[in-house]
């Protein structure tokens, strides 16, 4: 926590702040766009409805934003898990200095509070800015808007604080109860469980909101145990729409936030002393084991896909870094998680829809979009995680053995992404479709998904000219916002537009032929783009030291 920038130099394990904040804001942007679409049609229906009450009509979305806020904040805490409390490196740096450990503790807690604050603001900024505007757009009264804004702001912020404190408490309790080695060992499992929990919480936003208003009737409902329900109730209570049960639940939200916050700080103080004194002795890394199945898979993939020594070595390196490098795994996990959430939402949505007499034989656009969504986020996640550096100082090995004129990197990146993608696609596609549809739709759909994915892989890797994980993060530039925007739009083209077009084409399979010229044109465009790249655009690049280190060296020698 305290060392901040230094960690990046040590292991390259820290993400650049810019990309981090961009990633965190991404779900908000996505869901706001979804929402704009939804509210647009909602308003069309409701235009004639005079006693439409935006306060209560917005409840499902409010619930979703609260869940999102909790989930993203918890994800940050899970991600930063190892650096929330001081670790071995801090110990080595700080322990010899003659400073009281209480001032480190103070600094650590202060840094934690800053992290919570910044995350809460960043995660919710899109929804705070847009959501009240969308909902209260038709009301001219300013107080009406202000009340809604206030309630939303308090709800999502407290939800953030609550979930961060909860994760922090779990961390600190584990840290103080378990022996250090055991703690290191279970950390990864606990984090996986927590990720599953937050994904489940997000998934509840498809079904739970409908139940909240009727919650008073079921006295012993499990819904009352859901923190998301508490905070939504709090929001409703502030809007003056509460019944006695929701008022009670809203109260519970306040109490829970206060308690977990205080508890988190107490456990932090308690475990601090312990981890600070014990971590100096422990050995931080876990031993790896020989893995026969893993070796066999490697050999198969080598034989089938990766022929040159460079590709084989780089493939082993890439897979291991992806699995063992925490930031890499978490970036990938974050994108895949987003993909699972979005595709499960469309799956749930399509299952609850009434089936029209005509649509029964043809899969709906929502179902068709599931593998597309998964594929989009897997590709994007892999591509983004390749940007996250790992142990930059060890790169001399690649610099020494890879030819500086090598132009293999883009092709290599494509192959790696394809290797990860294809089995997932086949599995999910086959299991989804082969059972309920005929083989015709399945084959056509899988072919289209594969072709579209291959095109997308080509696009994302076109200017890739490094070995994955061996360059420091690109600086956050103003055009990064444009890039994020392009990814959002790209998602709608890749998943929503393609699946809608497919749904239309499936009504008469001859229409599928229309895909040929369109996809062919895109392919030609990509090839043209590739041709226009110069030698310097495609040559492999390395960067061995983070920029700051080089600068310091220069300073020290210039006397």
């Amino acid at each position: 926590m305290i060392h901040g920038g230094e960690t990046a130099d040590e292991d390259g394990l820290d993400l650049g702040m810019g990309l981090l904040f961009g990633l965190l804001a991404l779900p908000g942007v996505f869901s706001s766009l979804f929402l704009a679409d939804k509210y647009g049609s909602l308003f069309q229906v409701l235009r004639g409805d005079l006693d439409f009450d935006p306060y209560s009509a917005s409840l499902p979305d409010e619930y979703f934003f609260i869940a999102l806020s909790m989930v993203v904040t918890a994800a940050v805490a899970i991600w930063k898990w190892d650096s929330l409390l001081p670790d071995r490196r801090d110990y080595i740096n700080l322990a010899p200095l003659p400073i009281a450990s209480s001032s480190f503790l103070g600094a650590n807690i202060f840094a934690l509070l800053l992290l919570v604050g910044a995350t809460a603001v960043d995660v919710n900024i899109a929804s705070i800015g847009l959501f009240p505007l969308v909902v209260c757009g038709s009301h001219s009264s300013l107080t009406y808007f202000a009340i809604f804004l206030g309630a939303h702001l308090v709800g999502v912020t407290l939800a953030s604080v609550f979930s961060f404190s909860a994760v922090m408490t779990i961390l600190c309790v584990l840290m103080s109860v378990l022996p250090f080695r055991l703690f290191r060992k279970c950390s990864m499992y606990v984090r996986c469980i927590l990720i599953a929990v937050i994904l489940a919480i997000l998934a509840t936003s498809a079904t739970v909101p409908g139940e909240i208003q009727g919650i008073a009737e079921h006295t012993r409902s499990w819904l009352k145990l859901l923190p998301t329900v508490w905070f939504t109730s709090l929001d409703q209570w502030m809007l003056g729409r509460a019944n006695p049960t929701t008022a009670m639940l809203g109260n519970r939200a306040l109490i829970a936030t206060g308690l977990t916050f205080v508890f988190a700080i107490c456990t932090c103080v308690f475990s601090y002393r312990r981890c600070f004194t014990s971590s100096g002795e422990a050995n931080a890394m876990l031993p790896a084991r020989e893995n026969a199945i893993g070796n066999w898979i490697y050999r198969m993939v080598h034989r089938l896909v990766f022929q040159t020594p460079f590709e084989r070595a780089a493939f082993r390196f890439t897979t291991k870094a992806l699995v063992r490098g925490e930031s890499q795994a978490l970036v990938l996990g974050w994108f895949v998680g987003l993909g699972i959430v979005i595709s499960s939402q469309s799956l749930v949505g399509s299952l609850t829809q009434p089936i029209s007499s005509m649509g029964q034989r043809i899969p709906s656009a929502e179902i068709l979009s599931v593998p597309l969504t998964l594929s989009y986020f897997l590709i994007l996640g892999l591509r983004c995680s390749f940007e996250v550096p790992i142990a930059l100082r060890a790169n001399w090995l690649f610099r020494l053995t890879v030819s500086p004129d090598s132009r293999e990197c883009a092709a290599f990146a494509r192959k790696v992404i394809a290797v990860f993608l294809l089995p997932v696609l086949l599995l999910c596609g086959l299991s989804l479709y082969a059972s309920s549809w005929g083989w015709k739709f399945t084959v056509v759909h899988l072919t289209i998904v594969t072709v579209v994915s291959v095109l997308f892989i080509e696009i994302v890797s076109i200017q890739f000219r490094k070995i994955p994980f061996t360059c420091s993060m690109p600086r956050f530039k103003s055009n990064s916002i444009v890039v994020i925007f392009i990814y959002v739009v790209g998602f709608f083209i890749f998943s929503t537009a393609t699946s809608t077009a497919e749904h239309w084409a499936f009504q008469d399979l001859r229409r599928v032929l229309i895909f040929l010229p369109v996809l062919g044109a895109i392919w030609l465009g990509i090839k043209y783009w590739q041709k226009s790249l110069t030698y310097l655009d495609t040559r492999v690049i390395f960067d061995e030291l983070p920029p700051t280190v080089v600068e310091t060296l220069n300073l020290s020698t210039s006397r």
Partner: protein
Amino acid sequence: MVSLVARNLMKCYTSVPAVEDVSFSLRSGEVLGCLGPNGSGKSTTVRMLIGLSDPTRGEVLFGGKNIRMNLVAYRKLVGYVPEEANLYPFLSGLEYLELVGTLRGMDEPTLRKRIDSMLELFSLHPHRHSAVGSYSKGMRQRILLIAALLDDPELLIFDEPLSGLDVTSALIVKNLIKLLGERGKAVFYCSHVLEVVEKVCSHVMILRKGRVLAQGSADDLRQAAGQSSLEHAFVHLVEDRDATQTARDLADAMATA
């Protein structure tokens, strides 16, 4: 028979050159020791020899051709131990060596066999599945040494290979370097430790502030300086201040108010 020739190498990071006008030649069967105090430009020279950084002026020739002409083929013949043991901490020692071997295009059965026996000889076999990040400095240094020797290169470039090694390993490496020379390899060996250079090297080059002070076979140098041992010759050449006096001044400086 290989030959490595450096011609008038110069490297400037700032306006003051870190290395200036360094020339030497190294043939198969020779062990050239590069000796100099901290910051004298040894590592800079090595990085130019291996092609990791470009000389500001001058060139490095291998077999009569500039190494820039075909860097990949050149490096295939070179084993390199860098100054700092920066390895990928998330790989195990075994995996790291496999990565190195694969990158160098070695075939798998040979690679496996050599890694196994070398890990055994450097007493790293019990730790081969542990992550490199958990290794001590000496263990990482031994991994570096194995990685350099793995592909049986013709030319070996060592930059302070003994740093962090325990007594036994250091002894092994010293004898190994001598033996490599006798077996017809060309070895470039950098160190600031005089005794070692004196023991293992057939030729010596002394650097100071980026310039070559003296150069020749170990015996020549001793005679030229008119000293009985290389240590005296070195002190005579490099040190322009009295070590005992400096130590005394330091002790005094600590006590000043």
